[in-house]
């Protein structure tokens, strides 16, 4: 797209104030009436506009099965923005954005609707100067990907020439096992080149997740101990306190492992365990992630190193909640797991013998995502046992959400005449050191799509490697009957604790 011999005289690497404003372009959202679109995408578009990061003449087109005109659509966007945007509402910013709002009604199998969409996009190039650059955000069930990408190809919307780009953005799940992931990739790559496919894992857009790289590679303090000589094990947790009411259509048959471990948790593992990339270019970063994922294996026997559960009714946070099988829309016989824990080994020199424990679940104690690196005990303690009775293992915890930050746990003397050592924590909070107003993950990721910057998007190979890791345990569970029940509001089934106890460890209470 850009002439490599030409450099923009107004750009200077030392001029780091200069914002990255995207070039002329437009965004088309499919499934624009969905929750994600209303709560995250449309507000993110407005926030970007408000921060002055969208190009002049930016266009936002909605596609859905609704009998709306452009005005109705911009009314819907306006409502979503007022309710969910992070930055304050400013009329002049909104007016500019609203001028570029278009709506195309239709269903995915309707050829005429896609022809209208193609005409709308061409009109936008003429009226708003979007320059033939368009991103298609598929906020729709994966089952519709084939028909939509076929339609995009048929109506000529996917065709790009040298001066223009067309990109497609998709959300998880990227398939439900290795075979289906490959099929999905084939369908998309049939129409779009791999460089034009952006798979969103919104965790990678979070500041705290990007901070893992800064923490590890910008500091001298942590890297020397970031290996099996000092680390005892690593726990990666993503817990949610909500249940699955209303999400039966999506979640039944998918389960916690496919929904969360395959993408978010394995990406967090990759960032925690990978070697230092030679640079922060997208290629180098993805290469290191792919390397560490291909060295990652399940630990046998799966019966003893994994656990799964399904929540049953109980009291959570002061509210009476029902179990999964009583949730609206779920099969009363459902065998879908809502809690999953697995043990992984990373077969590299750095991590030999260090287990990585991954767990996720719904209706757990509270909503929290964190990576805890737990260190070995000091090899020799010049104290007698009673002095260090209350001393645990040192730990470094990266709190991904909420209350983003880093916690360190270490021993400290308890004030008094006797020598007694107890655990204390030292805290770094993003909120108190930097910012209460850090950008939402979707803002960052949408902007990266418009710039064509793929660093924060998992590549094709990473998705397939993750399925390769996870497939055996899903098959093992499928053969194994019902998941173990656990009460809502607790930290999962007993088998999860038993799985840790076998190696003499315990789950951290996050």
């Amino acid at each position, binding site marked *: 797209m850009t002439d490599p011999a*030409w450099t923009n005289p107004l750009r200077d690497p030392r001029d780091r*104030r200069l914002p990255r404003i995207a070039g002329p372009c437009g965004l088309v959202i499919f499934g624009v009436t969905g929750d994600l679109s209303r709560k995250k995408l449309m507000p993110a578009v407005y926030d970007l506009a408000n921060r002055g990061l969208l190009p002049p003449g930016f266009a936002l087109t909605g596609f859905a099965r609704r009998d709306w005109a452009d005005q109705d659509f911009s009314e819907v966007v306006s409502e979503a923005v007022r309710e969910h945007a992070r930055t304050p509402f400013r009329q002049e910013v909104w007016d500019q954005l609203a001028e570029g709002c278009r709506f195309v009604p239709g269903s995915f199998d309707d050829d005429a609707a896609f022809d209208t969409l193609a005409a709308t996009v061409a009109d936008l190039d003429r009226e708003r100067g979007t320059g033939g650059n368009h991103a298609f955000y598929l906020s729709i069930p994966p089952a519709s990907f084939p028909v939509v990408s076929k339609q995009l190809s048929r109506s000529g919307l996917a065709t790009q020439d040298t001066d223009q780009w067309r990109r497609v953005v998709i959300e998880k799940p990227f398939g439900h096992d290795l075979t289906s992931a490959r099929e999905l990739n084939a369908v998309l790559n049939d129409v779009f080149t791999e460089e034009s496919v952006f798979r969103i894992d919104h965790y990678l857009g979070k500041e705290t997740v990007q901070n893992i790289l800064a923490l590890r590679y910008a500091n001298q303090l942590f890297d020397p101990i970031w290996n099996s000589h000092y680390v005892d094990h690593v726990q990666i947790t993503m817990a949610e306190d909500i249940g699955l009411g209303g999400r039966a259509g999506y979640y039944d048959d998918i389960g916690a492992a496919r929904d969360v471990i395959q993408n978010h948790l394995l990406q967090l593992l990759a960032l925690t365990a990978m070697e230092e990339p030679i640079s922060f270019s997208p290629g180098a970063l993805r290469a290191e992630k792919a390397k560490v994922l291909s060295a990652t294996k399940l630990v046998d026997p799966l019966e003893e190193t994994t656990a799964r559960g399904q929540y049953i009714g109980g009291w959570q946070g002061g509210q009476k909640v029902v179990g999964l099988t009583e949730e609206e829309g779920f099969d009363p016989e459902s065998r879908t797991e809502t809690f999953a824990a697995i043990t992984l080994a990373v077969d590299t020199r750095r991590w030999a013998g260090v287990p990585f424990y991954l767990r996720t679940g719904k209706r757990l104690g509270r909503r929290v995502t964190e990576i805890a690196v737990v260190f070995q005990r000091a090899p020799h303690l010049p104290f007698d046992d009673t002095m260090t009775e209350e001393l645990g293992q040192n730990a470094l915890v990266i709190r991904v959400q909420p209350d983003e930050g880093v916690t360190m746990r270490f021993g400290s003397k308890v004030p008094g005449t006797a020598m007694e050592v107890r655990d204390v924590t030292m805290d770094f909070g993003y909120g108190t050191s930097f910012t209460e*107003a850090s950008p939402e993950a979707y803002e960052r990721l949408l902007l990266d799509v418009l710039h064509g910057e793929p660093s924060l998007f998992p590549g094709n190979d990473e998705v397939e490697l993750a399925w390769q890791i996870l497939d055996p345990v899903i098959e093992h569970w499928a053969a194994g009957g019902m998941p173990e029940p656990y009460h809502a509001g607790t930290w999962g089934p007993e088998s999860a604790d038993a799985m840790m106890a076998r190696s003499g460890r315990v789950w951290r209470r996050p």
Partner: protein
Amino acid sequence: MIVDLPSTTTSAVNRKLVDLRDKGGAVALGRVLTLVIVTDDGAQAEESIEAANAASREHPCRVLVLARGAKRAAARLDAQIRVGGDAGASEVLVLRIYGPLAGEGASVVVPLLLPDAPVVAWWPGDAPKVPATDPIGRLAQRRITDAGTRGAPARVLDVRRDSYVAGDTDLAWTRLTTWRGLLAAALDQPPHEDVEAATVTGAVDSPSTDLLAGWLRSRLGVPVRRDRSGPGGGMSAVVLSRRSGPIELSRPDGKIGTLSQPGQPDRRVALQRRKVRDCLAEELRRLDADETYEAALAGLAEVEVRAGKAGARRSGTRR
């Protein structure tokens, strides 16, 4: 919470801070910088604190407001500590100094700086001629002035250029960032032709317009003209001439900008004047030397200045 400590000393203020932390939980330990605001006691002090509170949502910091009161009085320090809801996400210490002490502000600031954290000094109104040698400027890694608050901004910018030291910056420069971003993004797009000349139009009292002209001159190395319109209204238009036709970014009403390019529809963009709080938040984001600002100041000397439409030509002679 607001705690008043009339006629006090800095050690008493420090003791009170530790005391507040013990009672109310960790207030300041995670702060990453100290912002020193130097101002005269009065309405301006309060305005500046408000801007700093808003900016602190992005950069929680310790804010020291040095409000200089009457010089003809007995030496006295009145301190006020604001934490929690009254201080945004930061903690604010308002230090009112009177009498002989009013000239010795640095002595009050030193004991209250956060350990090891960078110091930023901001003069919302009158700034010292050479910020870097000012006693407070010397404590700071970064010194923020505002050429937009005074008359005769052109002369102010000349002073800034002559006294520039790495770490200096000016809010008139910060106000330009969106314009600069849009212009750079416009040049990113094909056709990739060289810019042959540039014209910048803005109010006679708009230092930002001067700086934009200086920046274009320093980056492009082509003749740049600065047209002066009547006072008020800030910057109104930039034209970059290229072989295929001009790129024009104009903002006649101070709110909505229009970007025109040959062969393309006019594109409109919200381009309102930036508030002080937004500019301050941007300033606090970078604590290193701003070489681009230095180059823009230097480029200023080579800009051709024209007064109004009927005005006489005055070329490259700003000194």
